[in-house]
């Protein structure tokens, strides 16, 4: 550790920030002293600095396990832009040639992001044990818990890997982990005495508002009205990509003075980065997006977050609505709900994992494969196609099949008794997961139809107390939009320059651009 600089000075040197945000310094100090940490910090509190700064300061390498590949890639880009060059994201989408080169040079990096699937690969593990790894970070640590909203079976195996790596300091991070989930994390990591840094996630400057409507077109007219009344940067969350695209188009027509775009996981990386950066730069007023948006985004003056669809659980809602009002100014989280809205998340839960019937058919196909003596196709997409599963479903099933010893690096192993046991155990697991998700959805629905204070009931499963509202509390405590007067941004003037003037401006030709 470089002792000659204070943590504040290092923060300034490496990341350009002048002060720490809540929790960061305490966590970093403990890490530098080799303590294992469970950190629960609300969205937007700068979780990543908690390991990025130690990664710079500690000798050896920091590993970050994160299930969100696009977030990893974004972070790497941002770090590189901030001149932190010894960083890389490893994921299964890398070309074999590229991966080989990177694997040979892993020792050159200070910070390595890895997806949980890839971390299971022996090839990579063998490389990692040869390295000097001093910090092992588990991002989205709630994925380790069966009761968490995003259970990832791969996460349960992290403990074994941590042991293989000679027990580096562990930092488990999450933005939302209910109390039972926190216990699960320390158990699964076999660290019962893990030091906990838990920061409250309630936000006193956000006003919660639930509005019942009878139909989708009513939602559109509410959106249209709000965007006409207020000029504040806004996010509108959707469950489906198509709905995000269509609504963006519709609203652009209805609110021509607003600059509205859409964003979802189905877009090319470059098209997504463009939207993120435009929004950060105030070139956009409204982004219609799916839950893929917002992770890693750091815009402080979002003052309105609207949910067009019902989120699948309170955890997602808290994270998404928490992107509002980072600047402390009065902000509103509006959730629109129509009578049929609960069916969409329900059908997503049903489709998220393969059904017991699917499993039966797939076992039969596997047996045929085994009898023919063939290996499974190397290409994951063709397996998904063969079994008629989507990517998430196949990832889940492959993990289970490996767990039960039915497949090993593409080879099928047959033992009748094991297969029968596996069939039942996988079936049970699927039912269990569906039940967890349905319960989560029920909690969400209950909150939406809550008659009592929304603020009080939103946070009760996560923390014992909450601060009273700084502005207006919630729609159940009497808030209506007529009393909302947020800090508004300047109404943009529609740019009607000729292409030539635009080109001149963007190439910084003419007066007013500081020359070097």
């Amino acid at each position, binding site marked *: 550790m470089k002792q000659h600089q204070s943590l504040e000075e290092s923060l300034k040197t490496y990341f*350009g920030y002048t002060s720490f945000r809540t929790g960061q310094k305490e966590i970093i100090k403990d890490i530098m002293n080799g303590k294992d940490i469970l950190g629960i910090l609300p969205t937007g509190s700068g979780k990543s600095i908690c390991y990025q700064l130690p990664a710079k300061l500690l000798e050896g390498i920091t590993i970050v396990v994160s299930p969100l590949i696009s977030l990893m890639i974004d972070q790497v*880009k*941002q770090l590189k*832009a*901030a*001149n932190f060059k010894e960083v890389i994201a490893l994921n299964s989408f890398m070309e074999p040639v590229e991966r080989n080169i990177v694997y040979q040079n892993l020792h050159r990096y200070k910070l390595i992001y890895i997806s949980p699937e890839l971390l299971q690969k022996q090839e990579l593990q063998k490389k990692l044990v040869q390295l000097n790894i001093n910090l092992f970070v588990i991002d989205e640590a709630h994925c380790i818990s069966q009761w968490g909203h995003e259970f990832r079976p791969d996460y349960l195996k992290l403990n074994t890997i941590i042991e293989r790596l000679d027990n580096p300091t562990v930092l488990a991070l999450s933005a939302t982990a209910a109390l039972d989930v926190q216990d699960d994390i320390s158990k699964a990591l076999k660290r019962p005495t893990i030091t906990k840094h838990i920061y409250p996630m309630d936000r006193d400057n956000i006003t919660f508002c639930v509005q019942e409507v009878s139909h989708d077109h009513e939602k559109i007219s509410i959106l249209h009205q709000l965007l006409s009344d207020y000029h504040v940067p806004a996010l509108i969350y959707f469950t489906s990509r198509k709905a995000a*695209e269509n609504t*963006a*188009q519709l609203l*652009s027509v209805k609110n021509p003075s607003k600059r509205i*775009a*859409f964003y979802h996981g189905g*877009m090319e*990386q*470059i*098209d997504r*980065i*463009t*939207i993120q*950066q*435009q929004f950060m*730069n105030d*070139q956009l007023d409204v982004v219609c997006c799916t839950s893929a948006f917002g992770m890693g985004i750091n815009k402080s003056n979002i003052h309105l977050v609207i949910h067009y669809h019902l989120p699948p659980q309170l955890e997602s809602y808290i994270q998404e609505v928490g992107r509002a009002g980072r600047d402390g100014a009065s902000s509103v989280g509006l959730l629109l709900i129509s009578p049929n809205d609960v069916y969409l998340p329900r059908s997503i839960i049903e489709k998220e994992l393969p059904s017991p019937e699917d499993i039966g058919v797939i076992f039969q196909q596997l047996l045929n494969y085994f009898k023919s003596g063939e290996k499974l196709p190397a290409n994951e997409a063709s397996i998904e196609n063969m079994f008629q599963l989507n990517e998430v479903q196949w990832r889940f099933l492959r993990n289970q099949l490996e767990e039960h010893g039915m497949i090993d690096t593409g080879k099928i192993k047959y033992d009748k008794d094991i297969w029968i046991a596996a069939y039942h155990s996988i079936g049970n697991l699927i039912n269990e997961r569906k039940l967890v998700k349905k319960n989560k959805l029920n909690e969400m629905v209950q909150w939406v139809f809550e008659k009592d204070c929304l603020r009080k009931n939103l946070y009760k499963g996560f923390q014992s107390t909450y601060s009273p509202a700084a502005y207006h509390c919630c729609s159940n405590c009497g808030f209506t939009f007529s009393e909302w007067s947020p800090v508004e941004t300047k109404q943009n003037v529609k740019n009607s320059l*000729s*292409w*030539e003037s*635009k*080109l*001149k401006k*963007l*190439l*910084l*030709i003419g007066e007013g*651009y*500081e*020359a*070097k």
Partner: protein
Amino acid sequence: MLVEAIIIKCSLNIKGERTNSSIYHILQGKKSIQTVQDIHMYQLESYYGIFRSLTKGVFDKKINGLINEGMLQQVFGTEAFYTVSKTGEEWLDQQKKSNSMINYFNGLNYYGVTDVFIERLILLIQTITNTKMNHFNFIPVIDKTPAENWVKNVYHKKKTRETEVLGTIFNELKRLLHDISDEEAEMFVDRLTSYKNYGMNIYQLAAKYDFTSEDVQLQLTGITHRLLDLIHRTKSDFPFMSYILRDISAGGYLTNSADKTYNFFKSGFSIEKIAQVRQLKENTIYDHIVEIALYDLNFPISHFVNEANQEKIIKAVRSTKSYKLKDIKQLVDEDITYFQIRLVLAHSKNLQKQVIK
């Protein structure tokens, strides 16, 4: 409707002699001998590789749309062969009148050049405008290593002269863009990213100009081809653009394997020797040679076919209408091989035009 118009144009030339996936391969720029021969045979060189990111799903949707509109009709008794109906032909004529873009493309010539050129230009503008404002902390809009390396290199050479470089880029781009329509120029400018000003993505351009996102991608390619034509016509008028283009090699369009063969060939290895060293079949190496001849205008095919035999093959090609290898083979001396015929076909890019006229 640009994608549709180009599909109709291709179908018109192909006259139902190829399946519609051959059109897909042409637009997508498939590196196969069949596809490259198709573009020469049906004079579709301009459309080769103009839509690299086109997916089969999107293409099939467009084809189905055209069938439903009655513009394409199935060749009787076949499954995937289509000809253009009268309606389709009339519609294409209208489109040609209203959209000059259809004539902008120069696909084969700029295959492998288009993307590199535009990526370099976009990233360079983003980089230099940011560094001029002493802002070094920006997220690059192009995340391809070759473009990044090139820009880094240029940046190090020009970093004290940002204002001058930007002035030059402005003057050259202004002159180039005045040669296309105002709407096209505006679209090109809207896409550029500079200091604190991120350009529009394809969906935003689609919404602004009321095109499909596929048409936007094609439009941008068409505009770039047009600009490249202008630059090539008078290189001395566009020194900076020529500088960006200077070291973009045409070799980029050979398959890796053919490229290796080419390197061996250039160092004087014989076919047998190359096959031996690379542990490949001789026939595979012959395929590579044909592929090389397809792309490299300066490839010395006389190394494999003497001038007299080239003449004979060309004569035979002219007297067959079908353009089939078998038919040509029957019209030439027995000692002329299929490989030699393919080589001559591959190399004589203007052959088909001469045949028809």
